[in-house]
């Protein structure tokens, strides 16, 4: 049983998805989905433990040996991502039943869970497979279910947002497919480890160069790296509220995983950072993302939009850390992957609670919520402080490592820009805090009460994690460093 964990991680939600169609009652489907997600979380924990003890796990699908058969390969990086994804998925699901009962018609709710599990299976598959074509397949599974999930959002704008995402997402996926095809043409293999061995022989060819360039553009689209982020704000803002929480914490992280996996494992570090001007490109775009994203966030009236633009900025931080090309920079990026997943899932879940109670997430509807929904708003404050990077929250830990990595690289101006960028976060977070705590509600607004426990419980698990991992960094730091070491250990 234990040896089959890598495939179980993917197959359990994948097989569970159609089963949702059989169970029609929303509450039962919800409990079923929650159980499946919880099971996936346990599997990811077991996998992480195994990987940490004995190194990367290779699983031969159907018993075919790797270069010919499909290999599932879970190393430190995959294991950490699996853990983050399944944890956030499970926690968010706790609130899902209550949240979608108001946002999605009852007849379509079981469909929602089907898509949810398909998306989960898709991103788990991307992270655990060791085969590049498999990556594309899972990418399409997750993307198609994501388009449909977004389209389920209330209001007709969700359809347009989903369509926009469909077009751009497909372009991104196609670019990645082209890249995979070119690599296959040159090497005759699709296995990542095998590719890594064969690519150096043909590294000088223009075909591989093109493959690399196609991949970088395609993955940047999926990553929503500035200026390829245009699909994200609407897609996330008009999706069902819990879906926003789940996507914001996982979807872009998976794209980042792909970026790291391909550049470090498949193409190899030295090729990736010397062939294309990857470093100045990603550094520049990352910094632009930080400032453009934060500055745009300041002017949003819809709080969902506000936090999505903040995500654009946070992706900038991730990419800046990555672009340093040092173990310290990568550690900072991975720490921030972990920490940002905690911040954004907490913030969007709190917004889901507000939408459940108030029915909207416009800034003006937050007036007086500090007194009417004290626990929800307190969680938003915790998440907001974390975004700013105030000590004792996870955001501070990320920022500390990121700035430290920049300084160790000798990039003093970058270090300064990173801290200046976080000042913009003060502006957009505080607009919300001030409205919620120090403005009286408008007279015509209905009195609002605190969100139900189904929201508060997962919300405070996440908000508590924002503080806990800001004080006790042993786990997150240990994982990030282990991943960084393993990645820099493989590549020369």
């Amino acid at each position, binding site marked *: 049983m234990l040896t089959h964990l890598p495939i179980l991680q993917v197959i359990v939600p994948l097989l569970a998805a159609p089963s949702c169609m059989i169970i029609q009652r929303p509450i039962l489907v919800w409990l079923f989905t929650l159980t499946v997600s919880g099971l996936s979380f346990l599997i990811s924990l077991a996998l992480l433990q195994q990987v940490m003890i004995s190194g990367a796990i290779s699983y031969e699908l159907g018993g075919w040996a790797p270069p010919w058969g499909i290999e599932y390969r879970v190393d430190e990086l995959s294991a950490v991502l699996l853990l983050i994804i399944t944890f956030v998925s499970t926690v968010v699901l706790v609130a899902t039943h209550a949240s979608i009962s108001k946002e999605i018609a009852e007849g379509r709710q079981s469909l929602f869970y089907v898509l949810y599990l398909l998306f989960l299976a898709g991103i788990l598959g991307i992270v655990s497979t060791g085969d590049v074509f498999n990556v594309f397949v899972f990418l399409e599974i997750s993307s198609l279910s994501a388009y449909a999930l977004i389209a389920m959002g209330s209001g007709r704008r969700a359809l347009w947002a989903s369509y926009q995402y469909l077009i751009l997402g497909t372009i991104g996926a196609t670019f990645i497919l082209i890249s995979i095809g070119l690599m296959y043409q040159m090497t005759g293999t699709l296995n990542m480890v095998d590719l890594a061995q064969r690519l150096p022989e043909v590294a000088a060819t223009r075909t591989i160069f093109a493959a690399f360039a196609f991949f970088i553009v395609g993955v940047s689209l999926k990553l929503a790296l500035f200026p390829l982020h245009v699909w994200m704000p609407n897609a996330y803002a008009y999706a069902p509220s819990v879906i926003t929480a789940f996507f914001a914490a996982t979807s872009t992280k998976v794209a980042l995983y792909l970026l790291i996996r391909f550049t470090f494992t498949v193409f190899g570090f030295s090729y990736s950072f010397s062939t294309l001007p990857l470093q100045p490109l990603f550094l520049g775009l990352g910094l632009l993302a930080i400032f453009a994203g934060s500055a745009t966030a300041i002017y949003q009236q819809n709080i969902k939009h506000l936090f999505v633009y903040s995500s654009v900025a946070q992706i900038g931080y991730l990419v800046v850390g990555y672009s340093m090309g040092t173990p310290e920079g990568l550690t900072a990026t991975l720490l921030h992957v972990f920490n940002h997943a905690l911040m954004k899932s907490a913030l969007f879940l709190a917004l889901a609670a507000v939408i459940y109670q108030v029915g909207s997430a416009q800034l003006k509807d937050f007036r007086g919520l500090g007194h009417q929904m004290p626990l929800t708003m307190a969680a938003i404050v915790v998440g907001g*402080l974390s975004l*700013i*990077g*105030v*000590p*004792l929250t996870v955001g501070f*830990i990320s*920022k*500390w490592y990121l*700035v*430290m990595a920049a*300084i*160790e690289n000798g990039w003093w101006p970058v*270090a*300064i820009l990173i*801290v*200046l960028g*976080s*000042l913009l976060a*003060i*502006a957009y977070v*505080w607009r919300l805090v*001030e409205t919620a*705590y*120090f*403005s*009286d509600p408008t007279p015509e607004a209905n009195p609002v009460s605190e969100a139900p426990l189904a929201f508060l419980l997962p919300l405070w698990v996440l908000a508590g994690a924002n503080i806990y991992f800001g*004080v*006790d*960094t042993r786990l997150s*730091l240990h994982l990030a460093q282990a991943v960084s070491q393993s990645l820099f250990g493989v590549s020369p």
Partner: protein
Amino acid sequence: MNIALETMLQLCILLPVLSAIGVVASNNYPNLREGLTIVTGLIILSFTISIYSSLGAGETIHAQWGEILPGLKLSFSVEPLGMLFALVASFLWPVTTLYSIGYMRNHNEKNQTRFYACFAIAIGCVMGIAFAGNLFTLFIFYEVLTLSTYPLVTHSGSENAKKGGRTYLAILLSTSIAFFLLAILGTWFVAGTLDFTPGGVFGANVDLTVAGILLALFIFGIGKAAIMPFHRWLPAAMVAPTPVSALLHAVAVVKAGVFTVVKVCVYIFGIDLLGELPSTQALLYLAGATVLLSSIVAMRQDNLKARLAYSTVSQLGYVTIGALMASSFGIVGGSMHIVMHAFGKIALFFCAGAILVATHKTQISQMRGLGQQMPITMVAFFIASLSIIGVPPTGGTWSKWFLLMGTLETQQWIIMSVLLVSSLLNIAYLLPIPFRAFFPGSQVEQIDNEIREAPLPSLIALCIVTLLCVVLFVYPQPLYDLANAILVNPAGAIQ
């Protein structure tokens, strides 16, 4: 003995925070709520006094709360400068609470529970800053202090208060994240440690340019020290209720700023290195400019609290000057000024609040002739003004004396004249207020016989702090010993 002291040290930080929970729980019982605050304050005071008396016996007191990042622990230790600050803050907290009882109730303020709870958390942070064993710990409490005082500034919730709160938070958080954090990271990178070490953490071969830049980052980053151009938050914070302005924005928060400046100068750079840095002189002149300019701005304020706020900005510059002069007299004078100014300025704010509660007057021009109705308040105002100016028989005399000695020792003639001119300006903007109150001249407004002195609890608090301004003149020895020990014997013991 030592274990007991270590427990006391940690309780000084924890108890106020715990009492905040108690305050929230006793929301519906105002007497219990405020009683709890005062009792906690007195317990903390007794703890700091015990720790102080044990310093003389040569005890070293340390405590640790675990490691947040590798090599960066939350650690606490007691040294003379922190002791000085902790004593002042823990003494003034119960006194201010006494004052608040009279003020808040008579002024019918809303949300009093939030007020007392945030106040208690802020004091816990101040204790954490005072006893911080390294720069990292200090920074954490510094940031939490900003956040916990923000609800106090915006207390009234009016548009004006929100605007003030915005400025407050924007400047304090921005400077601390943009410069202070960067300076800390730089120090960690260059020196490899953030522990407060007597004589400094930078070795002999540190690059002077780098260290000079770090010093500038520290001075600008510690926004609570209100060095121009980052002083705007302090006048903005005056929208807060008067007890907040009194304790936090004349004592706890601003003194946390200058305390950090002195601490960084003495224990991170060390005064030997400080004197050699290329940026020290420029920063010294900047502090001097702050002193003069804010005094001039203060003269033009008609709102009493605004005038006192600019006066605070100016007086904080004195402490920064003392630290940056990098001489033993400067450090002694600067750290003594932390205490002397605290008592003088809190008394002045208490007076301003008393006038507000009794007469609802905020503008200085309305206060002519007030001496007849509020004699105690206006006499206290007079004495406290003398202490700020620095003339006998008040405590302010000593700190200014040592600061001037420092300018002589380091031959900073320009700074010396800044200090002298500023004292004259102090006279010009402070003394006319009590004078006109007692001798209104011919253009006195109609005297309102309804006006009486402020409520009794406030009046008692006012008298205590004013009396101490005088006591500190007659009996400054313990204070001097502590201030002197910072350089002479930083390990802790006082001979």
